[in-house]
């Protein structure tokens, strides 16, 4: 039996084609055994699903794998060695249909009593091949695809893709387009963080937090809808600028947002920040050190909560964000509570940026003047045959982007969002790869969760703020 599983690991690839009918009947037989409940777990594991992707028993897994799943590969901070024998540990399956995994994340937890010893995340339940889809869409259609990856931060995805495309095209944007982009992405950061604070509260039992967070977020979504026509998946930021100018009365809307949300934030502070239950559930829980962040590529609020002063908006600024005044909040201990404080302060700073943008919004065009990229204005189409042809060609054939490759990174709400775009001189990207912060964060879950109580696992998952659409793509 153990032979079976080990050969399955190494030769999944080669044998899957030939032995498909046999394994099909075998699977059915194993499912019957599983239903009858008469056989030992190893059979059942083979029958139920992922096969080689499942967590292996300690004696079958490589030492590196065990260290990785136990969270001791980078920094061996285990409090004490595993004392329980193999038979005394339990493998608990959490998800994919679990309300606190923030989507379809599946975790296999090896438990010793109530303490989590090993963790193995299983992902891919939401994999829809968006990188492949990206290769079939033109550069102008690209934002419609990438905006659906991280559905809580659609503007950031669009911005990153647009910046990468513009870097390959070598075009510059008018100041108003840059300012609109900064405004929308910073407001998006606030709406994303509000969703996070709502779910973080709910996962810890503060259900009223869920209602408050979503209530304030509604203001932002209403503004997004007014500006872009949609509450999410906007396709508003496009290569060459933005899709439309800001709507009439946008100053009042932004002023209302900038005034109302800090009041909500004060309420959250009253509700959570000094709440003994909240402190007990978050302080010292899910600690990740700076060293571990580097090794696993953890960026954004978790990295800053570990005390590392690194924000791409400051260090590698994009879209003119360096012209605005804001601070980067830092934590000290890298635990759930510090991540909470960092994100709460980031919302205030983002609103500060939004207020500054609203004050200093430059006049001018909201799109690039490069005629190869920007479609002609609607009025010109009625007057000029060339404009009509041009408009038609941009929207059917797309514009050609010079051959080259570019990696563009921006500071998303969850950390470094990077788009690697390869063009071979065509109107469609040859390859589009999205480096998503949630993917890196999911990988570091064992580091965060090992040696913690099972009850803390939901607090830890919520604190890294994963979006599974972003993980699986």
């Amino acid at each position: 039996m153990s032979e079976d599983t080990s050969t399955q690991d190494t030769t999944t690839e080669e044998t899957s084609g030939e032995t498909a009918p046999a394994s099909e009947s075998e699977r059915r037989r194993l499912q019957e055994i599983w239903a009858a409940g008469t056989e030992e777990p190893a059979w059942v594991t083979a029958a139920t699903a992922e096969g080689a992707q499942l967590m292996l028993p300690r004696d079958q897994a490589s030492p590196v794998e065990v260290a990785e799943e136990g969270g001791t590969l980078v920094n061996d901070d285990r409090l004490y060695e595993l004392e329980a024998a193999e038979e005394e540990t339990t493998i608990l399956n959490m998800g994919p249909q679990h309300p606190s995994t923030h989507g379809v994340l599946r975790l296999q937890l090896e438990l010793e009593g109530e303490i989590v010893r090993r963790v193995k995340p299983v992902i891919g339940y939401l994999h829809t091949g968006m990188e492949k889809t990206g290769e079939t869409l033109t550069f102008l259609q690209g934002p419609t695809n990438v905006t659906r990856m991280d559905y809580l931060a659609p503007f950031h995805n669009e911005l990153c893709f647009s910046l990468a495309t513009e870097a390959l095209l070598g075009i510059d944007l008018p100041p108003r387009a840059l300012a609109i982009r900064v405004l929308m992405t910073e407001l998006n950061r606030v709406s994303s963080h509000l969703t996070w604070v709502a779910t973080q509260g709910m996962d810890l039992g503060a259900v009223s937090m869920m209602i408050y967070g979503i209530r304030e977020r509604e203001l932002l979504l209403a503004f997004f809808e007014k500006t872009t026509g949609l509450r999410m998946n906007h396709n508003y930021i496009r290569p060459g600028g933005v899709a439309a100018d800001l709507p009439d009365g946008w100053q009042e809307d932004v002023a209302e947002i900038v005034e109302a949300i800090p009041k909500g934030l004060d309420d959250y502070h009253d509700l959570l920040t000094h709440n003994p239950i909240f402190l007990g559930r978050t302080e010292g829980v899910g600690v990740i050190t700076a060293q571990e962040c580097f090794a696993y590529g953890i960026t954004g609020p978790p990295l800053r909560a570990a005390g590392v002063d690194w924000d791409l908006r400051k260090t590698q600024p994009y879209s003119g964000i360096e012209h605005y005044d804001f601070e980067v909040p830092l934590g000290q201990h890298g635990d759930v509570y510090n991540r909470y404080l960092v994100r709460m302060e980031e919302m205030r700073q983002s609103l500060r940026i939004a207020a500054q943008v609203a004050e200093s919004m430059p006049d001018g065009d909201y799109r690039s003047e490069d005629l190869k990229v920007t479609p002609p204005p609607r009025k010109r189409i009625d007057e000029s045959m060339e404009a009509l042809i041009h408009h038609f060609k941009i929207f059917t054939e797309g514009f050609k982007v010079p051959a080259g490759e570019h990696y563009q990174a921006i500071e998303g709400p969850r950390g470094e969002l990077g788009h690697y775009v390869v063009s071979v001189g065509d109107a469609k990207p040859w390859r589009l790869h999205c480096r998503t912060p949630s993917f890196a964060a999911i990988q570091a879950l064992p580091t965060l969760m090992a040696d913690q109580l099972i009850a803390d696992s939901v607090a830890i998952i919520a604190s890294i703020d994963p979006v599974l659409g972003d993980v699986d793509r």
Partner: protein
Amino acid sequence: MTDDAAAPEEEVVAPEPSPPLPPPLAALVEAFPAATLEHSAAGQNVFRVEASHLVEFAQAARDAGFEMFIDLTAVDYYRQRPGPRYDVVVVLLSLQHNLRLRILVAVDGDVPAAPSITGVYPGANFYEREVYDLFGIDFTGHPDLTRIMLPDDWEGHPLRKDTPVGSVPIQFRGTHKVE
């Protein structure tokens, strides 16, 4: 500064003399004559390395200050260029020097193989599994090289360019047309 083929090639490409390299990159060029510095523009420092040297180069990069692992992916240049078909792309970041580094490794063959850098950067684990899953590139030395996005019994590697879009029949074809 340089004592290899990189220097003349760079001069041919660049129309004007390029500014001096930042110290960590200069140190890398010096320590690793086998690596070719392809281009070094603002924020985009691209090295091309032989597959057999990847692990040592990653180690040298980490020693030179590129402490953070950012990204690992692959590109399939199917019928786009002579020579090796795939490029494995590694993106690293140095926080202390505020520099990015991109490493390109060309691999080829029916079962292309590259060494795993999980020993240097543990964060490469999931990324290598993803590339293995979607491109079929074998990372030798990886502790747990299994599919990550797709089920174990999936055949083929969808991000390869010879896998056309829509080549896998989907189950919900039998929807009714509204008349």
